[in-house]
């Protein structure tokens, strides 16, 4: 099918479960390739911390199989389905790697791309290829697998992925600070990251977003919530919690979430439940943690905005009112001044068709980008225009 489309120049939209179909620039009239029938775990070696699965395997099935052996995906893949109008818990493992959307534990354990050991796929030339493998250390040839992560199906259709898994930590706890303004909160998150306690989640929710949490204590406070997660065996968590609170004493009194509350709190953030689907726009901004609060402040001069800071401030989810141009110019200008790049995650189709959804590229990078696209997909048939116009 790919060969036929390549010959005739017929665009193909690649769909797993469709959980992220409303993200990116709309793809025009296209044939659809679905990976939904490519299901099943093909390799799982718990003692080697490795799993392979066909690309269309639902993430929930993967995580259930891992949990049965006390293991998990360390990068805690985030589910943007609910925030963009799709059901939660439907995404496929192929899409997780194709979009490289990592969750809170990214700051401790690395991104989705860092756990991807190998792929099999089909490029736009209808060639079946593989890259990488199933072993933990591998520098044989180019790291094509990792290079495909985050390419949103514009370079190849993934058919199978092999990835690293890790054991669930024995226990987890969360230390929470209330009512800190953004700048102090980010300062606290950064100070926590510098402590030798292996913080595995560092977030700050502005008060209006904290009010959308389900934790009865936190949602009714009317205050911002700044939270740090610790994971390890229980003795270590207890000791590290004390050490952390001691180091952060100047930021005020800390609340604590126990193991069960911790699991709930962070799984809620994984589903972006504080950013439910609505008419507002949702931006995802990568920046230097130390610049995050200033960047949000700069954007707020132009528009109302509510922020969820993840990755100790390195990632900002920003909810802003819907406008025809999505505030693109102002947001990208603020990102350029403070350092960072911004992706429009949620907007009406017409808006996504008319503005740059992904960060515009410098001329040199754009040239490389077009070259890479042509190397994989010379006819330009795979998810054309999803990331950038005419690409």
């Amino acid at each position, binding site marked *: 099918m790919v060969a036929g489309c390549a010959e005739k120049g017929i665009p193909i939209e690649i769909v797993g479960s469709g959980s992220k179909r409303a993200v990116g620039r709309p793809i025009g009239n296209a044939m659809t390739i679905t990976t939904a029938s490519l299901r099943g775990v093909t390799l799982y070696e718990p003692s080697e911390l490795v799993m392979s699965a066909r690309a269309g395997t639902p993430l929930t099935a993967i995580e259930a199989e891992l949990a049965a052996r006390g293991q998990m995906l360390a990068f805690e893949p985030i589910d943007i389905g609910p925030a963009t109008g799709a059901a939660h818990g439907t995404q496929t493992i192929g899409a997780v790697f194709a979009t490289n959307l990592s969750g809170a534990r990214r700051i401790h354990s690395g991104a989705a791309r860092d756990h991807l050991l190998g792929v099999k796929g089909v490029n736009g030339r209808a060639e079946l290829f593989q890259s990488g493998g199933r072993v933990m250390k591998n520098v*044989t040839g*180019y790291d094509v697998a990792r290079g495909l992560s*985050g390419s949103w199906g514009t370079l190849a259709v993934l058919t199978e992925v092999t990835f690293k898994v890790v054991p669930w930590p024995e226990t987890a706890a969360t230390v929470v600070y209330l009512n800190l303004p953004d700048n102090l909160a980010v300062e606290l998150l950064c100070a926590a990251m510098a402590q*030798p306690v292996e913080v595995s989640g560092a977030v700050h929710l502005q008060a209006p977003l904290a009010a959308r949490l389900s934790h009865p204590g936190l949602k009714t406070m009317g205050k911002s919530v700044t939270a740090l997660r610790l994971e390890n065996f229980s003795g270590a968590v207890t000791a590290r919690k004390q050490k952390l609170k001691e180091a952060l004493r100047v930021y005020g009194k800390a609340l604590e979430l126990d193991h069960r509350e911790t699991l709930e709190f962070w799984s809620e953030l994984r589903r972006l439940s504080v950013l439910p689907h609505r008419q507002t726009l949702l931006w995802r901004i990568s920046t230097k943690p130390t610049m995050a609060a200033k960047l949000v402040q700069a954007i707020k001069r132009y528009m109302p905005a509510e922020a969820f800071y993840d990755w100790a401030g390195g990632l900002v989810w920003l909810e802003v009112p819907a406008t025809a141009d999505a505030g693109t110019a102002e947001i990208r200008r603020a990102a350029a001044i403070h350092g960072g790049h911004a992706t429009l995650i949620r907007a009406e189709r017409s808006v996504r068709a008319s503005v740059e959804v992904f960060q515009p590229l410098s001329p040199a990078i754009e040239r490389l980008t077009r070259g890479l696209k042509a190397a994989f997909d010379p*006819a330009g048939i795979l998810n054309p225009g999803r990331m*950038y116009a005419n690409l």
Partner: protein
Amino acid sequence: MTTNNVLGVRMVLIDGEIVDIGGPYLDAEGYDFLALIVGSEGQSGIITEATVRILPKSESARPILLGFGSSAAASSCVAAIIASGIIPVAIEFMDKPAIAVAEAYAKAGYPLDVEALLIVEVEGSPEEVNRLLADIVEISKGFQPKVIEASTSPEHSARIWKGRKAAFGAIGRISDYYCMDGTIPLSKMQEVLAKISQICAGHGLKVANVFHAGDGNLHPLILYNANNEDEARRAELAGAEILKLCVSVGGCLTGEHGVGIEKRDLMGVQFTPADLAVQMRIKSVFDPQWLLNAGKVFPLEAVEMKEAPPESTHRAA
């Protein structure tokens, strides 16, 4: 892996243009070019600056030395430690020939009556390290260890590491060696170690093994005399057979040192022509004329047959 912690590079492209790829951010804008550049063995451009992620140093770290009656027991113990959920910062493996040479040189106090030695290091606060080492001792007991020696002081740690760190040099004092770098799935370790011995014996050569067992990255050291042309040739043949073995059990040709020139002709063992074409086109994106480290990574005959650089324009959607 290095690549996990590289956030950005400044690079000079073949046409002289200077580009910044990535930056002090935890994810890429657009395609993940960093993934393709890191480990490309100088084939994509000249890197002049890098931005890397740094981590707070752990409070303390201590190793434990475990000696076993067989390589099989040591391999099984490695798998059991990893399966238990402990992720040590190092699990180093030495076989009997390597232990003997390292001990003779470094006098680290290694037992000479064991077939295999593991050095397992864990880190954390002193209490955490105690607990993890105690857990590892418990796990190791399932594999009849002949020696259990946990470090009790920084000096003790240094002594335990001394032999391992000196091993390559120590072996180099007694013989020339040809060092391989294949990676294998942990579950194949026993089988592969036995076959490596057979391969080397088949070529009339001795082999010592010192490697990173935690991630299955083998470093068989094939001992030979560099002044003897025939032995040198046999060492190379044995090396190639070992790497083919690694690939055949699901592993790869190189775990950390790269392909270079030496292993380029083995690439066809691990990759199909289509797999290689996909990689070679990426090289052409950065370097259409193939001027940068052109003789590395890819088999020469594949390079000769490569397609013309891709046209970077195509029909708009």
